């Protein structure tokens, strides 16, 4: 089942880069690490309310190199990653007023922007290859848009945060490697030094656990 589902992603999945050491740091949230002094959400708010270029520069200096790093980890070339990082920061400027700190962390919000731009990049290229009008490219669907205005999104955010806290560091590591860094299961197995079967079962357990916790009191 997992193999079948993973196969769905094949056309867009790029080849993974050279194996790198596993990031052992697994703390959560944009606002809680050693760099917690900086309130990224507040900086985004200043860009939104008064087009504060100083605040924007700090956002750029922090996030642009990280977007580039994450995109390269997920298989983009350095040029592609640079383009996505620059376009993502322009989108942060343009969409700053849409950011709602009550519902998403700043880093998660910026990730979704970069993710959508990566999707757009692949599609624009495919379209350009067919010599079609690229101006009519549809926006990538944005799953963060409200599904149902009735639910309290802030309450939802609290539930999501507490659910993530209940995952083990091991579970988070496999989810991150598999989905966000797009590593193949055998590569994850060798990176973590665990059997392939353990990778698969750990991903499955993490998925089930997350779903179960999120469904509680739903």
């Amino acid at each position: 089942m997992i193999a079948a589902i993973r196969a769905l992603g094949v056309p867009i999945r790029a080849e993974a880069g050279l194996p790198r050491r596993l990031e052992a740091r697994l703390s959560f949230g944009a606002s809680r690490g050693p760099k917690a002094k900086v309130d990224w959400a507040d900086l985004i708010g200043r860009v939104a309310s008064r087009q504060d270029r100083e605040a924007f520069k700090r956002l750029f200096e922090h996030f642009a190199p990280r977007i580039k790093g994450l995109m390269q980890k997920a298989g983009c070339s350095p040029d592609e990653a640079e383009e996505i990082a620059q376009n993502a920061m322009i989108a942060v400027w343009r969409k700053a007023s849409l950011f709602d700190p009550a519902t998403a962390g700043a880093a998660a919000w910026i990730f979704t922007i970069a993710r959508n731009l990566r999707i757009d990049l692949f599609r624009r290229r495919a379209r350009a290859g067919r010599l079609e009008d690229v101006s009519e490219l549809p926006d990538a669907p944005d799953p963060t848009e409200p599904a149902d205005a009735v639910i309290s999104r802030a309450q939802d955010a609290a539930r999501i945060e507490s659910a993530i806290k209940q995952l083990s560091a091991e579970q988070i590591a496999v989810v991150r490697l598999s989905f966000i860094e797009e590593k193949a299961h055998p590569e994850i197995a060798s990176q973590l030094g665990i059997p392939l079967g353990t990778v698969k079962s750990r991903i499955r357990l993490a998925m089930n656990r997350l779903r179960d916790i999120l469904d509680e009191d739903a």
Partner: protein
Amino acid sequence: MTISHHPPEELLAEFAAGNLEEAHQLVVGVHVAGCTRCARFVRALEQLAGAALEEVEPVPTAPDAFDRIMSRIDELPEDTKAPPPASVTDNDVPPALRNYRIGKRRRVAPGLSMRPIELSGSGKARAFLLRSAPGSRMLEHTHTGTELTLVLEGSFSHEGGRFGPGDFDYGDDEVEHRPIVGDEGPCVCLVAMTGDLRMNGLLGRLIGPFVRL
């Protein structure tokens, strides 16, 4: 709308990470847009991705990147708000599809018609809207690839249960389908399909050559 059939979690995770090809992204996205439960799961994955972004090893951007960005920002038009969505006059088409060009309806078999959805061509799977007449027994078929189906209107039932609006059905080449469309009205589905559809049974073999999905 009570949704009882959801995409597998791994598919939602690939969706959240932006790893799905276009047709699959589209079908899962329309489901997520109408399903608070799956939207919550996707947002949880996005939070995990945000944490990964915070902790990834930074790679320096081009030396002039910030200046280039600022000059592009200065060239932005005054009103940078997104344009209002185009008005939707086509009842068949859910809002999530309004940015896509959708082809004309084509009859593919008795009681069965489809409208192709124009994609960028970056992926292998096709996407289309499939409309089946109420009460019809859809052709028994197997897949050579995968098929993601989202019910937009009406319902169908097969061995896996009843599928109404918002329900998501995942089929691969191990699954044999004999869907029966509900009596309440036509069933409109958004489908992403890889590979070919194989019609089974005598009727399928007879009309198979005419079915071009």
